[in-house]
């Protein structure tokens, strides 16, 4: 079992510690209340990488939006380093399934967004080029988003997040819309970036293999209203291999928890 202890033994992290306590949330839809999250409890150690795995529409993305501070939970608490989250903050950055680059800005100006919003553009301009280099988009810095492929656009979105040196990176199915080859390449990229930057990472995905390849811990969510069915400790060093018998076994367990055990 690699757990909190093993995570703590890694190189020191400037990541954020996250605590979600007894969190419930619901949407108002045409007068009726639709529960999406039901009494979620979870804890992320600084620098840990955790995946939220579950069927689509189960409320995982809502959990990310709550952690990002874009919405306020109905009941329960979310603590970042012990402080309750009330509003969005550049230390916690959300990367969406769609790159959502601004079409009127070049790649470079899109990446500059966070620095510009906080008035740091003048003093820290060089960080833009560093971020572009990190995701391998230096040659495309003057391109407009419409000129990028899906994979490149998602890299640009990652650079736009990383330029702010987030302490918690929230990834909402960031590879969900990419073709399978690009996705495999981007998975290694995500691991590399996480290892370099030492942020805490919370990944929402419905790809079992992706969750097991990328994360220390995989939390399996049930159907809406979402609650955590099980926590799987992966306990393998990086780089991991898809055919590692331990991962294959974990994948089988995860699928069984999701009611798909017989389909693999």
């Amino acid at each position, binding site marked *: 079992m690699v757990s909190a202890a093993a995570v703590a033994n890694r190189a020191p992290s400037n990541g954020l510690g996250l605590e979600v306590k007894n969190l419930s949330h619901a949407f108002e839809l045409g007068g009726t209340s639709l529960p999406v999250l039901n009494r979620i409890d979870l804890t992320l150690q600084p620098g840990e990488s955790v995946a939220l795995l579950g069927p689509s529409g189960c409320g995982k993305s809502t959990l990310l939006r709550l952690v990002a501070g*874009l919405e306020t939970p109905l009941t329960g608490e979310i603590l970042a380093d012990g402080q309750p989250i009330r509003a969005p903050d550049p230390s916690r950055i959300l990367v969406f399934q769609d790159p959502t680059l601004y079409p009127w800005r070049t790649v470079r100006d899109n990446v500059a967004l966070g620095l510009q919003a906080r008035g740091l553009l003048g003093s820290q301009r060089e960080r833009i080029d560093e971020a572009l280099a990190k995701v391998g988009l230096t040659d495309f810095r003057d391109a407009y988003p419409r000129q990028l492929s899906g994979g490149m656009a998602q890299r640009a979105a990652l650079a736009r997040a990383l330029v702010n040196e987030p302490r918690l990176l929230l990834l909402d199915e960031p590879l969900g819309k990419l073709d399978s080859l690009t996705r495999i390449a981007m998975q290694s990229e995500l691991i590399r970036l996480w290892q370099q930057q030492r942020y805490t990472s919370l990944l929402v995905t419905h790809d079992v293999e992706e969750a097991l390849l990328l994360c220390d811990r995989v939390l399996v969510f049930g159907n809406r209203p979402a609650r955590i069915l099980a926590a799987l400790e992966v306990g393998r060093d990086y780089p991991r291999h898809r055919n590692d018998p331990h991962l294959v076994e974990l994948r089988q367990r995860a699928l069984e928890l999701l009611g798909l055990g017989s389909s693999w």
Partner: protein
Amino acid sequence: MPTSSAELSRQGTWRSFPFWGTGFVAALCWVAFALYSTEAPNATRDWPYTQELANLSLGFAALLAVIALLPGRFARKLRPAGKWLVVLPILLGLWQLATAKQALLPVPFFAPPQALLEVYAEDWARLAESLLHSLWLLLNGVLLGAVFGFVAGISIGWSQRIGYWVHPVLRILGPVPSTALLPICFFIFPSSWGASVFLIALATWFPVTVLTWSGVASVDRAYYDVARTLGASQRFLIFRVAIPAALPHVFVGLFMGLGASFSVLVVAEMMGVKAGLGWYLQWAQGWAAYANMYAALLVMALLCSGLITLLFLVRDRVLSWQQGAVKW
């Protein structure tokens, strides 16, 4: 990019033998028009400036012939217009035939092309003054209307509290044709010029407001989420997200507003303002100077088309990130 083998071979012949056939044919047509103008007998009377018109078209023909023989960058730019350069003298010839030569159209009401030339040569000072007056009036009105429309549209789109007050005004006042308010405005305003500026502004304001509003309202929510997680303030969300995202709509509004402003301008000048192209039209009609009317109409057409072209140039620059925008 050549799209077919036929096109490829045609480009090939251009390169090896750069003589521009269409340009040469066009030159011949302009010569023919000049000869027809001077040599064919007139139906009712001789028109002044016939010789000058012929000289102009002969000069143009010579220019075309030179360009057709000596191709350079300019000739290559002119080439796409080749067919129009052939058809234009033919149309002018038909005009000449229907008016001066055969008098097929009732005589005092339809002037031949040389009569327009006469107006430009003799009355250019008054025409130029009218043009400047119109431009100045239009500039004041359109700028005021566009600025207020832009601000109103952003406010309604952004703030429900402002929308509560502006929206009903927009719904009641906006669709009323500005020209219908002309009599009242001439009465209320101290000068007819001020009244016209107000009405042109009103005509521009309405479409700019509605389109800016719809532009702001249709901005993808995710754009705001992205900016908010990156630490953006309200100010940043308005000026760096909402406004750039709404700009394509704003330009459609400006286009519509400019079109509406033209008609208000002309009506205002015909009814109250004692200057401008609209006034010139009215004045020419009063004196039964029909050639002057056509001359002024032509200037007006060029003015309106020129302003729209200018707007599209600005748009193409500002929205260069957009793909497949309509070319004016």
